[in-house]
């Protein structure tokens, strides 16, 4: 990664020096070595503090929405960031010419909590190599299976390389199929059990709205979830269901499976599972890609005159 990191710094510096972008969004050091944080380089020297390693977790696409108002933005994008950007572009929230995208392929992000638990001590560095992940601690260097080390969202990732990049650093990795197998388990539950399952999840919700704030598909200027006629502030189960259904429906058919909502949720609610259930249904019912590719026809967002369900009075096939 360090070679790529060096090239990234170099590109960011050049973009900032030449005034192509006003700010370059990437990652910088956090309080701990294994928890880097989003970093906004606004001058050429700051570009040297950019960092890119296996612990860079946050999705960066959503930051663009704010930043772009002040001028063009550069950023580093993994596959999931790229999809998020595509979402914003398709929703006309940003214009392509306002972005400079430095693409990198991503083999998965290491979850520091998971990794430390697996290694039994502080993990300082990591290498993701195919099916295993090498964790480097002050005392040892050992390999573990991916599932013991990576973020959940990365375990199901289908797009390691962004589809839109002005420049791609390193090799492209071809896209794969999204693994939706974890949906089966919920689908198989009898309905009352399934209800209890979701009730257990939703009742933990703090209504902090982190899931909405990070979501590239939740990019509205004014959110109906902020309006009291749609959603009361209480956290009773009815409001929780209302909140979660509304959120899920508002991204249904538009969610790009970046997994940010689930990663950001402090309560550990499996939002990705709900999104994946919608995604699977949409794929099976409408034959669309899972996840939706922004720019493709939105299965739930188009009037089509030859809809098999009919439109006019009289219904059926007319």
């Amino acid at each position, binding site marked *: 990664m360090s070679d790529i990191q060096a090239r990234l710094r170099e590109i960011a510096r050049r973009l900032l020096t030449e005034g192509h972008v006003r700010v370059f969004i990437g990652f910088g050091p956090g309080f701990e070595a294994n928890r880097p944080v989003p970093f906004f380089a606004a001058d050429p020297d700051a570009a040297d503090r950019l960092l890119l390693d296996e612990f860079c977790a946050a999705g960066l696409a959503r930051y663009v929405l704010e930043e772009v108002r002040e001028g063009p933005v550069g950023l580093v994008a993994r596959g999931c960031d790229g999809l998020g950007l595509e979402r914003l572009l398709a*929703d*006309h*929230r940003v214009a392509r010419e306002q972005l400079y995208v430095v693409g990198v392929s991503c083999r998965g992000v290491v979850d520091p909590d998971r990794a430390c638990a697996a290694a039994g001590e502080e993990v300082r560095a990591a290498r993701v190599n195919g099916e295993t992940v090498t964790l480097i601690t002050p005392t040892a260097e050992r390999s573990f299976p991916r599932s013991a080390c990576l973020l959940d969202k990365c375990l199901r990732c289908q797009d390691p390389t962004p589809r839109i990049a002005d420049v791609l650093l390193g090799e492209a990795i071809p896209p794969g199929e999204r693994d939706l197998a974890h949906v089966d388990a919920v689908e198989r539950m009898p309905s009352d059990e399934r209800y209890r399952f979701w009730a257990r999840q939703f009742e933990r919700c703090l209504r902090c709205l982190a899931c909405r704030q990070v979501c590239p598909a939740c*990019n*509205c*200027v*004014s*959110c*109906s979830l902020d*309006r009291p*006629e*749609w959603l009361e502030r209480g956290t009773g189960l009815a409001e929780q269901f209302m909140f979660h259904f509304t959120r899920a429906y*508002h991204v249904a058919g538009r969610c790009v499976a970046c997994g940010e909502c689930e990663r950001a949720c402090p309560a550990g609610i499996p939002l990705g599972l709900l999104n994946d259930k919608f995604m699977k249904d949409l794929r099976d019912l409408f034959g669309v890609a899972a996840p939706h590719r922004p720019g493709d*026809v*939105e299965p739930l*967002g*188009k*009037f089509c*005159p030859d809809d098999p369900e009919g*439109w*006019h*009075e*009289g219904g059926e*096939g*007319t």
Partner: protein
Amino acid sequence: MPRIGVVVCWCGHNIAGTVDVTQVTAAAAAMPGVVYAEDYKYVCSEPGQDLIRRAIADKRLDAVVVAACSPSMHEATFRQAAAAAGLNPYRVEIANVREQCSWVHRDREEATVKAVALVQAMVAKARREEPLEALRLPVTRRALVIGGGIAGMQAAMDIADAGYQVLLVEREPNLGGRMAQLSETFPTLDCASCILTPRTAEVARHPRIELLTYSEVREVAGYVGDFRVRIARKPAYVDWDRCIGCMLCQEKCPRKVPSPFERDMGFKKAIGVNFPQAVPNRPVIDREHCTYFEKGKCQVCVRVCPVEAVDFEQRETVREEAVGAIVVATGFDVLAPAEFGEYGYGRYPDVIDSLAFERLNSSSGPTGGVIRRPSDGRVPREVVFIQCVGSRDPDRGRGYCSKICCMYTAKHAMLYRHKVPDGQAYVFYMDVRAGGKGYEEFVQRTVEQAGALYLRGRVARVYPEGDRMLVRGVDTLSGQTVEVAADLVVLATAAVPRGDARELAQLLKVGTDAHGFYNEAHPKLRPVETMTRGIFLAGAVQAPRDISETVAQASGAASKVLALFSQEELVADPLVAVVDETRCAGCFLCRPVCPYQAISTRVAGNREVATVNPGLCQGCGACAVACRSGAMALKGFTDEQILAEVEALCLRTGSPG
């Protein structure tokens, strides 16, 4: 809080038989904001409407809820009554306690509880109502008629005779449509051109009809009263203004090609008209078959033309026109019977379709009106007609009856006998449908006087034997296999929509049925209207039909256009979508869901937001649902109103009275 009045209708026994209207009225009287509640036997009657008018005046009502039948039944009636009493008509709400309640319940108590709930919901909605003003749209008093067949000509004449301008757009170089190909017409046997030719001449001469032949509609924008259409005229490669119609070019053109007008049984030239009586009498060059266009030399036409009208450099021209109403009269096609291999069409020259038989019968046709079979020009002694080829055949996707084939086949059998007195006609049929004035009598004459032999059953196979065709089928009446050796086989092929019917329908935003025939707004009550206001249907574009029905419908469509043109301004419901620009994100997720393309972009400050054209919007509400921000609202059905209704239903304290 607004002062609300509630009127509960008995609808005679219809509602009062199942719902306890007295209890509903009492419950309504106790609802917040309700200052007046009354029930009445028939609220839609004159005394019923008067009750509403008086209540509005006496009780100073701000809104009225009528608990009655479906809004599609009497909403307009009650709105008018309210307006007469000085109340904004859009402050009338209907609680549908008939179709949604009394008609679907048996239990009186349950039905009463539900009726109270429905009234409660509408009272809650009425509380959040705003007065709305009807939209007023200007009318361009000029009509566009698409298609110059008998339907389009009739509609154009009727509108023009009433004093309005008409643009008549026909794709072919000449008027007439299918009818121009027919010989005689059932049930009177008058010759098609004898009735058609005077009509085409009249249309061409009419001072208020502008005829645009060899032209197509490319784009349709706007809405009722103010449509903008782009019309393209294909290059004829002849300057029609110079041309004097002498047809020397056609005479001298060395290039002869099969004529589609003659169903490929005759020939035409690469330059010329489809048939001698064509109106306008102006030639076009068939670019695909012209030697000059193919090889770069020839130009015989250029040399013989006395007025230098031939112009190989002519290009397509496009013009934009404003019209207030559109009549679609693009007609029908006949099925290419190639897909019916068992009948040997396309393989054997003596298997032809009925349209070709019309040409054989026509005195201006390829045989001068003598019935000769295509293979060797012999006059056929035995002719087999097969009905329902492709029609009434759900297995092959067309379950419908083409309606005209029974009649024209009877006509063919009769005309054949007139011309070949010792000939024998056989007709394979499923059953004979002759509903129409004088139709059954016509078929009887074909059987009794023309001696046509009707055989009930489907034909399984047609194959050649010697110089004849063997037709094998089963007579379902006797159960026996029948075999007829015929000199000529005529297939009555299904009437189908034109190949480009769906594309044009999309331009016009008019719905089509499963086959591609255009949908009327209501099969019984609005048969010439479409779901798009200001666009009307005439003729076979809607469904297969014969000439007399076509003409009747065309006059019907014309009268609708005239009714529209007789208004000073068009009044439209204000129940349309509006954008709250402060909330709109400019994501335009709303745009693709709008079936009427009513949503476009507007710059507000430094960003783009959605905006709705109220003339185009039909108030379907699809956009309001698609907008996640809640920036799109449907007037008269705002989120606040709908949520108030839902809340009233959910929080309802329950028992009536």
